[in-house]
């Protein structure tokens, strides 16, 4: 049984079919979803994380059906994500952003909070230490008390990653994590992801436009176009697929190359 599996996912918005019978399965490692703009990649993520309810199809994680669950329940099960257009809690500090990410792991109730009992105090200091540890991991420790709004762009992307990691996910969905980064920054982010996969037993699904990143880091690549899966396989196989070449470049041309931009 795969860790994560989606079958026949169809999502319509009025007359537009954003996803058409998409199958997707993942055992472990890093999988990438690529495709031209408007192919339905982010819609697929929104279905996976419970923000959209698909019209047809099923999504299971560790054998449990995710459809019908609220986004926070899905996060509690161990699926968390980042957003294409960075959605941090802008007026909260970096460490507070990460702490919010831990909410699904907190079992304390109102009484613990109001009474400030030892259980609560221990939990708060543990959380703070873990949050700072995560910030350290993504290289943001010095900016822990900086309000998210004031962080530079690259740091905001990395903070979003730390916030998603805070929920202790087994499956992490990253929506264009290297968008707007230089090739060097993207490379170091990918090294970080590789490390996380190894250390935390993390499985990652990546939406990415930066082809160098995709080809370097992915174990498998899925290509979407107009809401349909047109190719799937190892990076090499996908690169050679005529349908992929056609989707990216039109009828005659070379293999996809370089970033298409966000």
């Amino acid at each position, binding site marked *: 049984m795969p860790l994560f599996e989606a079958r026949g996912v169809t999502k319509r918005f009025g007359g537009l079919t954003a996803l058409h019978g998409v199958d997707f399965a993942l055992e472990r490692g890093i999988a990438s979803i690529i495709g031209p703009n408007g192919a339905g990649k982010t819609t697929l993520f929104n279905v996976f994380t419970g*923000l959209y309810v698909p019209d047809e199809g099923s999504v299971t994680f560790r054998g449990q059906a995710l459809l019908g669950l609220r*986004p926070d329940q899905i*996060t509690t099960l161990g699926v968390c994500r980042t957003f294409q257009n960075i959605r*941090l*809690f802008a007026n909260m500090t970096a460490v507070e952003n990460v702490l*919010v990410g831990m*909410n699904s792991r907190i079992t304390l109730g*109102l009484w613990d909070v109001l009474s400030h009992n030892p259980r609560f105090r221990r939990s708060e200091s543990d*959380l703070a230490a873990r949050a700072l540890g995560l910030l350290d991991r993504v290289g943001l420790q010095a900016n822990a008390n900086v309000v998210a709004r004031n962080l530079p762009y690259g740091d905001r992307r990395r903070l979003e990653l730390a916030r998603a990691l805070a929920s202790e996910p087994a499956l992490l969905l990253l929506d264009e994590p290297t968008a707007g980064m230089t090739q060097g920054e993207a490379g170091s982010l990918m090294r970080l992801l590789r490390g996380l996969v190894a250390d935390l037993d993390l499985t990652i699904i990546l939406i990415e436009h930066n082809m160098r990143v995709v080809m370097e880091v992915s174990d498998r690549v899925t290509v979407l176009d107009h809401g349909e899966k047109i190719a799937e396989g190892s990076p090499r196989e996908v690169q050679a697929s005529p349908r992929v070449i056609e989707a990216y470049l039109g009828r005659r041309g070379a293999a996809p190359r370089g970033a298409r931009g966000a």
Partner: protein
Amino acid sequence: MTQTLLSIGLMTASALGVATFPRSVLIFLLFQGSLVFVYRARIPELLRWSLLVVALLVLMPVIGYFNGYYLEVATQVGIFVVLALGLNIVVGLAGLLDLGYVAFFAVGAYSWAIFGSPHANIIFGGGFPLAGGWFYPFLLIGLCTAALTGILLGLPVLRLHGDYLAIVTLGFGEVIRVLANNLDKPINLTNGPKGITPISRPPTPLGLPYGEYFYFLVLLLVVVVVIVNRRLEDSHIGRAWEAIREDELAARAMGVPLVRMKLMAFACGASFAGVMGVLFSAKQIFINPESFTFLESIGVLAMVILGGMGSIPGAILGATVVTVLNLQVLKGFSLWLNELKNAGVTVLGYSLADLPTQFEPAKYERMVFGVILVLMMIFRPQGIFPARRRQRELTTPGG
């Protein structure tokens, strides 16, 4: 060092001043100002808090002995501080714009007013009013009733944001007021616009006069509410509320249970108002729907905005400024102008006695208030004491 001396000096001088000239509004304002100064001054924490405790626990009641009205003002300030802190949770932290907040205050007030007055005999036959001692359990009952009402309001508005939420909560506030106004038929629950009186008061300990008694009770509740507020704010619950305010969709995706957290915000905010409602009805002896109009909700909201949304010191200061402005500054100004008129003073050849009564400053209460809000929004939109982010120690084990 200079600030230490200045703090002690200012507070002592103004307190003595109030004792010497108990009628002077200006000197009482100076006393209040000295409290703010002490709160902000660069002095040792221990000194700061001892000064504030002495001022509120000792000086203020003594001042009240010289002029009972000042104690009444201080009590009113306390009531509004609690209301502002409650609304601050809903609006400031969770970002849910609530324009009908005073409804929860009304629910608390009516819950004690009905059972703490002979009025309940009309409904239940006899045995009322409840003895004054019941007032204390009713603080808790008022809290629960208001919290339940909060959840009741929260349920239908869970999906609403911004303007839409504001409209519905505004309607809700009006519904409660209109209910209070009209539930004298078929069963006389609220006695309609005539209101309910006399409402029992609790027996005071140590034979304390009611003025002082309610002052201390309000002060105690303010302290409790501030502690509760701070603890909520510095916990996963407060962080979840702020996350909802910042980005609801991201908060959901990060594992914040939206429904539970929103309902909790409404319930917590409402419960503060409920407790204060119970106290208010006992203090006033008489309540009617006039005390719970839309304008009151707006007033409390203005306190929160003026002070700084999401900031506890801000809500306290906002409530103080607005209440003092309404009860003292404008009224005092009117009184002073009247004295000048009666004394037949002329300014630049114009006899003040000819001044039409329409020019009384007390009648411009809401206008002055509006102008202050407009100026605030232009020059200091974040409020007087904006919320400050908590700074954490940057140490990790083995970091």
